[in-house]
C-alpha cells in the first residue's frame, strides 16, 4: 500500500482498490486493441534503430513527437536540451485472470543512456503500476512537481465508464505522465522509473515495501501527520500558494465550461442530424423545388460531419489538457503543503532545542545534529521546489498555449469548411439546370 496520497482527490486512500482501477466491465474479449487509432505500424520483437520506427500513439497533438521535434519542444519548455529517454504508452489490452479483468498497456522505452543495459525496452503495465511509480517518485522527491495521473474513476455517472473513449483518454494521459517524467531533469534519473521501464515483472519489486529505494519515506510520513503548521513561511512560497489557489480555480472553471460546450455541441449535432434529412423528405413531394431542397440537405449533412470533427478535437485535445492542468493545480498545492511540513518539522526541532527540557549533554548534541539535518532538508526542499516551479510554469504555458491555438485553428478550419459547402450550393443555384422558364 502506498503511503502517498492519491492525487485525483479521491477519498479512499486506505482502501486497497487495486483491483477496481483498471477493471474492464463491459467486455471479456481477450484482445481489445484500440489500435485503430494508432496510425503507425506495430513493430514486433526488438525495435529497429531508426527514427520513426518507434511506435507512436496517435494521441493529442501535444503527444505526437518526432525525434527532432521532441528536442525542440523540450527546449521550449525549459527541459534538458538533450533528451535521451523516449517513452510511449499504447496498445491497451484486456487481461483476463481467474480473479479479475483489467487493462494492460504496452510501455515502450528508447534510450541512449549508459545506465540502461539496452537501448530499447518493452514491458506491460497496468494502471496500478503507474500509481505505484508515481507514489515512489513522490516519496523520493516530495517537493518536485510531478505530472498527475488520470483519475481512477470518472465521477460523472457516465454509463460507459470503461468504454473505448475512456480507455483511450486514460492511455493518452498515462503517456503524458510518463513523457513528462522522462524529460524531467531529476525525475528521469529516478531508480524507480528505470525499474518501471525495464523490469518485466514489477510485482516482486512492488512487494518489497515502502522502504525500498526510499530515502525519506519515514520522514515524509511523519511530515504528513505533523499537526502543527509552519510558522514563518517565506513570502515567495506564500505567493506561490496564492497562485496555486487561483490557478486551481481557473482550471476548474475552464474544465467545466469546456465540458459544457462539448455537451451542448453533442446535442446540437444530434438535432442537426435529424434536420438535414427533413429537407430530403420534403424534396420527394416536389418537382422543380426538389433540386435545391436536396442541395440544402446535402449541405447540412456535410456541415454535420465537420461539426463531428470539431467536436472530436475538443474532446481529444483541449478537454484533456485542461483537465490535466486542473489535476496539476492540486499537485502544486500538495507540494507546497509538503514543503510547509518539512519546514514545520525543522521549526519543531528548533523549539525542542530552545526549550529547557534538555537534560543530558548527549541529548543536546543529538538534537543539534538532527536540527542541522532538518535545516538542510528545508534548504534542499525549497530550492528543488523553486527550480521546479519555474520549469513547470514554462511547461504549463507551452502546453496550454498549444492546446488553445490548436483549438482556435480547428474552429477556424471548421467554419472555413462549412463556408465552402454553402458557397458550392449557392453556385449551383446561380446556374440552374437549364429547364427554367426564363
Amino acid at each position, binding site marked *: 500500500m502506498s503511503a502517498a496520497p492519491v492525487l485525483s482527490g479521491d477519498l479512499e486512500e486506505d482502501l486497497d482498490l487495486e483491483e477496481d482501477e483498471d477493471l474492464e466491465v463491459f467486455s471479456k474479449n481477450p484482445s481489445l486493441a484500440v489500435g485503430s487509432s494508432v496510425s503507425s505500424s506495430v513493430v514486433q520483437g526488438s525495435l529497429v534503430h531508426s527514427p520513426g520506427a518507434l511506435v507512436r500513439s496517435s494521441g493529442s497533438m501535444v503527444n505526437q513527437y518526432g525525434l527532432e521535434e521532441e528536442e525542440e519542444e523540450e527546449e521550449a519548455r525549459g527541459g534538458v536540451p538533450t533528451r535521451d529517454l523516449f517513452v510511449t504508452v499504447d496498445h491497451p489490452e484486456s487481461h483476463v485472470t481467474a480473479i479479475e479483468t483489467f487493462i494492460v498497456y504496452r510501455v515502450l522505452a528508447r534510450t541512449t543512456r549508459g545506465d540502461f543495459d539496452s537501448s530499447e525496452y518493452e514491458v506491460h503495465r497496468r494502471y496500478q503500476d503507474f500509481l505505484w511509480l508515481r507514489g515512489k517518485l513522490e516519496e523520493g522527491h516530495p517537493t518536485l512537481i510531478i505530472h498527475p495521473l488520470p483519475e481512477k474513476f470518472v465521477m460523472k455517472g457516465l454509463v460507459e465508464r470503461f468504454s473505448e473513449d475512456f480507455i483511450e483518454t486514460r492511455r493518452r494521459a498515462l503517456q503524458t505522465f510518463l513523457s513528462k517524467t522522462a524529460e524531467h531533469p531529476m525525475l528521469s534519473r529516478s531508480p524507480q522509473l528505470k525499474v518501471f521501464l525495464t523490469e518485466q515483472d514489477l510485482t516482486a519489486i512492488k512487494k518489497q515495501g515502502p522502504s525500498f529505494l526510499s530515502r525519506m519515506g519515514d520522514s515524509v510520513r511523519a511530515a504528513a501527520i505533523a499537526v502543527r503548521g509552519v510558522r514563518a513561511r517565506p513570502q515567495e512560497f506564500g505567493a506561490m500558494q496564492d*497562485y496555486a489557489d*487561483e*490557478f486551481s480555480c*481557473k482550471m476548474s*472553471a*475552464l474544465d467545466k*465550461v469546456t465540458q*459544457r*460546450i462539448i455537451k*451542448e*455541441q453533442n*446535442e*446540437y449535432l*444530434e*438535432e*442537426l442530424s*435529424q*434536420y438535414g434529412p*427533413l*429537407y430530403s*423528405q*420534403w424534396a420527394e*413531394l*416536389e*418537382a*422543380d*423545388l426538389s433540386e*435545391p*431542397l436536396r*442541395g*440544402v440537405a446535402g*449541405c447540412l449533412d456535410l*456541415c454535420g460531419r465537420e461539426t463531428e470533427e470539431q467536436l472530436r478535437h475538443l474532446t481529444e485535445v483541449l478537454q484533456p489538457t485542461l483537465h490535466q492542468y486542473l489535476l496539476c493545480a492540486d499537485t502544486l498545492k500538495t507540494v507546497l503543503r509538503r514543503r510547509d511540513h518539512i519546514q514545520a518539522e525543522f521549526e519543531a526541532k528548533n523549539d525542542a532545542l530552545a526549550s529547557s527540557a534538555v537534560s543530558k549533554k548527549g541529548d543536546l548534541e543529538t538534537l543539534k545534529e538532527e536540527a542541522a539535518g532538518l535545516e538542510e532538508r528545508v534548504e534542499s526542499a525549497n530550492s528543488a521546489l523553486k527550480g521546479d516551479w519555474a520549469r513547470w510554469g514554462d511547461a504549463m*504555458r507551452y502546453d*496550454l*498555449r498549444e492546446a*488553445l*491555438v490548436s483549438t*482556435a*485553428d480547428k*474552429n*477556424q478550419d*471548421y*467554419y*472555413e469548411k*462549412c*463556408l465552402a459547402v*454553402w*458557397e458550392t*450550393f*449557392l453556385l449551383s*443555384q446561380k446556374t440552374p439546370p437549364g429547364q427554367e*422558364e426564363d
Partner: protein
Amino acid sequence: MRTGQLTAHTHTHTHTHTSQETRTMADSDSEEAAVLDNTDLTSPESENNMINTMVERETALLKKIDINVAESEKRSGKNTVNMQETYTVYLIEIRPANAAEGGLPVGDSPWRRYSEFELLRTYLLVTYPFVVIPPLPEKRAEFVWHKLSADNLDPDFVERRRLGLENFLIRVASHSVLSKDKIFYQFLTEEKGWREAVLETGFQDKADSRLKSLSATLRVKNPDKSFTDLKQYSDELNSAISHLLRVRAKVADRMYGVYKVHGNYGRIFSEWSAIEKEMGDGLQSAGHHMDTHSASVDDILEEEEHYADQLKEYLFYTDALRSVCRKHELIQYELEMAVLDLASKKQQREELTTGAVRVFSLKGMSSKLFGQESPEQRESRLAALQQSIQASEDAVLDKNQECREFMRMSWEEVKRFKEQKDRELREALISYAIMQISMCKKGIQVWSNAKECFNKM
C-alpha cells in the same frame, strides 16, 4: 422595414368576380354528367398563360398605390363580453405609387387589429373559393426556440406580425381577382364602417357550413383525381414543413447554447490573466473575442427567424389549398346529389306511368293501404312530377356548369400558386444559404483573431 417584394401573376383574360356569377357557357349534354375528367388546360392555353404571367407583373391596384403596415400600437378597451383587454393595432398606410417621398396618404389610414384581418380573410375565402387565398401570419407564436418569446404582446413578435400582415395585404393586392374587391379596398382606406360593410355583404350566409363540408368529404363518389392529388400534396407538404420548422427550432436552441457558453471563456480568461505575467495580455484579448463570438448568435438567429417565417407562410398556404379542394368536393358532391335526385324523380315518373312500383313513395304506400287513386289524381301528380323533373334537370345543368367553371378557374389558380411557391421557396433556400455563409464568416473571423491572441501567450 421589409416592404413586399412580391410580383403578381395576372391573366389578361377577363375574369368574373365570383364563381356564383358564372353562367357563361351552356352545356348541352350534361344531364347525367357528374364529373369532368380532364381539368387540364389545353396546351395553347397554358402557353398563353405563361406568357401573360411574364408580361404583366402588377395589378391595376398596385399600379395606383403602395401599401404599408407602418406601425403598431397597444390599445386597451372593453371587448364583446364587456371585459377589459389589451390588444395591438396596426396602422395601414396607403400612398400613391410613384409619388415622391411624403406623398399624401390615400384614405383614412385606418388602424386595424388582427381579428379584423381575420374577418377580411374569411370574407375573401367565402367570396372567392376558387382562389388560393394568401394566409395571415400566425395567430400564436409556434415553433419557438426557447429564447424567443411566445407572448403575443412581445415586441419582436409584434414586429414580425406587422411584416406578415403587410405581406398579406400586398399579396392580396397583387392578385388579379382579389385586388379588385371593393371590401378589400375599403379595408385599406376606411376607418369607420368597414365592419358593417363587410357584414352587409352577407358573406356569412354564403359560407358553407362545417357539416356540409364534412359530409362532402366523406361521400363524394367521383372526385377529380387532380384535386385528390392536390389534397394529398397539401397534407404532405403541411406535415413536411411543420416537422422541419419544429426541428429547426431545436437546432437553433442548441446552437444558441453552444455560442452562449463560450461567453464564459471570456470571463474566465480575463480573471486568469490577472494572475499570469507572460500570458496575461494574450488571454485578456482572447477573452474579448470569446465575448464577441458569444454575442454574435443573437443576430444570426434573428435573421433565421425571417427564413422560418417564409416557411411558415407556405405552411399556412397549405390550408388555403385544402380549402380549394374542399370547395371542389362540395360542389362535386352537390352535383352528384342533384344527379341522384334527378334520377330518382325520373324513376318515380316511370313508375307512375307504367304503374309498377319499384321505388318506395308515400303515395304508393297510401295507395296500397287506402286504395288506388283516381286517374285525375294520377294526372295531377304526373304533371307536378314533370315540373319537378324539369327543375332538377336545370339544377343538374347549373351544377355541372358551376363545377366545370370552378375547376377551370381554381386549376389556373393552383398552377399560378405552384409557380409562385417554387420560385419563392427557392429564393428562401438561397437566402438561407447566404445566412449560413455570413455566420461562417463571422466564425472564421473570431477564431482567427483568438488564435492570434493565443499565439501571443
